[in-house]
């Protein structure tokens, strides 16, 4: 099943299948390690609900929710 990253619950993992959004956002995500075909785990949210955090390629990243909507993840 394909979900948007912000629909994953904390601790859930999946494989990134598609990243949408403008080229600058996609370039930035790629540079920091959000890449198609890689496993990603949703981690803890900030106490006020935004931003969220994820783990991928051995590193923890955080970004705001509206960015998470651009990341599509295949989950089991």
């Amino acid at each position, binding site marked *: 099943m394909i979900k948007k990253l912000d629909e994953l619950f904390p601790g859930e993992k999946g494989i990134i299948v598609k990243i949408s959004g403008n080229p600058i956002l996609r370039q930035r995500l*790629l540079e920091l390690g959000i890449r198609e075909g890689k496993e990603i785990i949703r981690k803890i949210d900030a106490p006020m609900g*935004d931003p969220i955090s994820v783990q991928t390629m051995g590193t923890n990243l955080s970004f705001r929710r509206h960015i998470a909507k651009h990341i599509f993840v295949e989950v089991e």
Partner: protein
Amino acid sequence: MKKYKIALVGNPNSGKTTLFNLLTGSRQHVGNWAGVTVEKKEGFFEYKGIQFEVIDLPGIYGLSANTIEEKIARDYIIEEKPDLIINIVDGTTLERSLYLTSQLIDSHSRMILAINMFDEVVDKGIKVDIKKLQNLLKFPVIPIVAKREKGIKELLDILLNSLDQRHEDRIHINYGEDIENAISEIECKLNCYPELTGEYFARWIAIELLSESDIKNILEKSKEYCEIIEEVNKHSKALKDIYKEELKEVFNDMRLGFINGLVKECVTIETKFSRIDITDFIDRIVLNKYLSFPIFGIILWLTFQITFDVGGILSNFIENLVGQLSNFIVAIMPDSMLKDLIVDGIIGGVGGVIVFLPQIMLLFLVIAFLEDSGYMARIAFIMDKFMHFLGLHGKSFISMFMGIGCNVPGIMAARVLESEDDRKITALINPFVSCSARLPIYILLCGMFFPKNGGTIIFLIYLTGIFVSIITAKILKTFFFKKESLPFVMELPPYRFPTLKSIAIHMWERASQFLKKMGGVILIGSIIIWALGYFPLSSHKERDKTAQLENSYIGKLGKMSEPIFKPLGFNWKETVALITGIVGKEVVVSTLSVLYNAKDDSEDLKLKMQSDGVDKETALSFMIFVLLYVPCIATIAAILRETNSVKWTLFSLFYGIFVAYIFAFLFKHLASLVGKFI
């Protein structure tokens, strides 16, 4: 003798600066890149009789020139043409970091890949086949642990060795026949202008042009600009027809394919037993929904305590030293103008600012610890939503909070922000946060005019300051820094215990910058204010300070501008106190006592002020004015340093006066309205 130029390139948190400090020790120079507030660090070292100049390029994740840091790094490599690039990567995020490496490969520079934190790599059960990686990349790869100074000697030997070797058998990332053909044709055109491309860069510039990177600033210098662009457009159009997507994406796909290949060949994860990840464990506590804010509160409180309480003790010590120095000079020098200049102008002005030094050093000690340990990123994480409301970044909060103690370290704390615009806005709004030097003025005036509800009034003043800084942030963001900020994507680095050495270096850098860069501005400012209060010399010999100040240029200035401040209720004496307050807010109270010729108790000052027409409302508007108008010289110097712009510093001054005037006016008249009803 030839001096080799070495550039350090790597992701933030990859240990780049640790390596830089290891190589250069104290032989380094910290400044800014031209026109921006991004830090530029250069240093020197010698190894086996050979001289090296090292530059620590800003921490970046790629070379696409989307951020100012990326642009600086790329332009430096193209324009300065370093003899060798040391690409330092955090071994635990090797695959991620190799993207930057793949872009550096396009530059065809001589390179060494230093895989840092290799001890953690081994601990995590990750096996990296260094030999194989080296063979595939065709340049040296070396594991190091910069923090424990492991592998550094080997790195230096490899460095010497690769500088000796011919640089011909270089690695290429093959972008496929069509693109490669286009690249070589553009390369051909570029090669006619060797002053532009140097030995190797033609291919890189061709790739950058095809992927529509913002590289025009470099090319515009050449006369053949149009011709080259025409050639590029021809190819990119044809290629887009073939690939049916942006060429940038095509290049990226190829690069990622190349990296996947490397990782598949050279990296194996051996053990997969699940150890408790320390970082995960700490995050579960400090980012917990209910615990995160209390923990952050305690850490802020500790920061504040260390900076201002411990720092305060040291400050008093320095203050005593300054006092003794000035007493000593008073005792040994005959009365003269020079003596007055040294004692009142230089020692009084600069000494009053030097006392901040311990606080600044301690603040940066704490900040260095928070940054190097990884907690700073978590602060940004938990505060982001709140600060986002102001159009700012989570990390701005630290700066605003520090401002309550003193605006100088508050403004200097703005440099923890990644985006240049955010740094500027954060620095510019800081003076409105009421610092501790302004508190004595409120205490004195509230004690005199609002004996019953002084606490409430002071609280109201602080709130007004925060309100104005929020509004100012909004205004700056809406009208002046409109540029869409880069999407907020931030790394939460693993927690690591910082070494004492790295923190000490960090702290010393800031302190020496404070001394060097601000010293000049503060010295000049203090002398100007002193001279305005000193000249023209009064004719009568007896040293009547009140008459002296009244007849001085400042006194005249105060009287001249009296009509301007009439609507706020200030007479020339308050105006003069405001002008001298530019040296330091501490001076405002003492100037008032001198001008009113008050004896050493506030009751006397109060009576004299009241008989001069100063009422409750005027006192309130005076305090509001003090809160918002021009900050002290040290703060102005800090703004100048952090925004790196005379324009913004002047803006800050005039905007401050403007806002102060409006708010003081409003408060005076609202207060008298409220007063009528109560």
